[in-house]
């Protein structure tokens, strides 16, 4: 039996748009994954701490506030500090193409822009998690 994949869906910073995060969380659940949702208004440290405690395979961060260039590297740094460097990070939301290379450089595995399909996100997550012991 395939092991069950655990994903965390996180909303960092003050961004209050949660429609996308909730739709993705539900898609993950419908695909048989366990989804830990952090709720709104989480600091990078809180997200990293939670991701480590939950020992998730993948951390999916949803940001529509434009603060991605600051928040994502901080989350990744916090994860590493807490021993969660093995957790793979995805980002989704309103992130312009021009900002993507820097995010990938900082350690984000993939960035999903507006209009991304749920099945694409789910399948990529499954592949990513599968590569993790």
């Amino acid at each position, binding site marked *: 039996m395939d*092991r*069950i994949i*655990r994903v965390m869906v996180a909303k960092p910073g003050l961004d209050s748009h949660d429609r996308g995060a909730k739709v993705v*969380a*539900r898609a*993950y*659940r*419908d*695909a*048989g*994954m*366990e*989804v*830990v*949702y*952090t*709720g709104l208004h989480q600091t990078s440290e*809180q997200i990293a*701490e*939670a991701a*480590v*405690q*939950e*020992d998730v395979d993948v951390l999916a961060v949803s940001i529509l506030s434009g603060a991605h260039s600051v928040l994502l590297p901080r989350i990744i740094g916090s994860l590493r500090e*807490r*021993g*969660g460097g093995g957790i793979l990070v995805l980002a989704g939301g309103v992130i312009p193409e021009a900002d993507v290379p820097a995010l990938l450089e900082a350690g984000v595995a993939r960035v999903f822009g507006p209009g991304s399909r749920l099945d694409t996100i789910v399948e990529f997550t499954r592949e990513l998690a599968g590569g993790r012991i």
Partner: protein
Amino acid sequence: MDLVSRLLAGDPAALARAITLVERDRPAPRDLLAAIHPHTGRARVIGVTGPPGVGKSTLVDQLAISFRQPHALVGVLAVDPSSPFTGGAILGDRVRMARSSADPGIFIRSLATRGQLGGLSQATGDAIRLMDASGRSLILVETVGAGQAEVDIMNHAHTVLVVLAPGLGDDVQAIKAGILEIGHVFAVNKADRDGADRTAAELEMMLEMAPDCRAGGWRPPVVRTVARDGRGIPELVRKLDEHWDCRQSELDGWCRRQAAAELSETVEAMAGSRLREWAAKSGMWEEVLDAIVGRRLDPRRGAETLLSHYLDSRPGEDAGSPTGCWTGRRRNT
């Protein structure tokens, strides 16, 4: 440092990984559990159950913060149901535990039931022991609360806190008797709502009338709380502490009963699965099934047949009585 050493030293990442391993691999990683077992038995465990929507998570958040004064390290296990159709789950209890999740001394882990009935997941017992071994001296376990089925918590928690709330569409009368019997302390949360006094009064009355089957003559108190504001929490903590003190007087007895219940459950599960595996591999399963469906064999005789063949198939072991008593879960009061 290897995983076990780091876990025993209190490293949260190691604890988290260990819980994943026991959750994922059934039967659980034996070496890991064997290594940590001598370091368990110290933690105090409080189970929190009740119907959905009463505010369990918010209450657990408040309790975890309160217990941080006497306990340097606290653990929280929050169990949510897996979808029976997809096998997935949304684990959203953390959202309500804002203060706890900001406290580095509180470790919160969400678990999905993964098909297990009874309000807990199969890995809960192991997860509690892992937390215990990693130095969490107070562990709160929040179960899926849907009524009478939530008795598993009794086998894991020294104290069971049952949480109710007024106006959820169910009168207290409608609440199944089972939930009243398993609770050591009762909380009526959202006590600022209309009907709270009535709910508390009805509850007190029903507890009076329930048979006194609790050890040590303990009379379950009813506390009114408004978890969101923190009201009633100090009193609730006091009552929980009183129950713990009461427990202390017969802790050894409780521990033995708890271990027996768990051993019984584990043994049944292991034996059952080995038997089924052998029966499937040997083809006996299908044979017996055919006979039952063909009306040549009744189910009970069929089971005995499987069992005696299985025992015969194992050379060098005492065949013993093929009619073992596989009784159901034992309840640890």
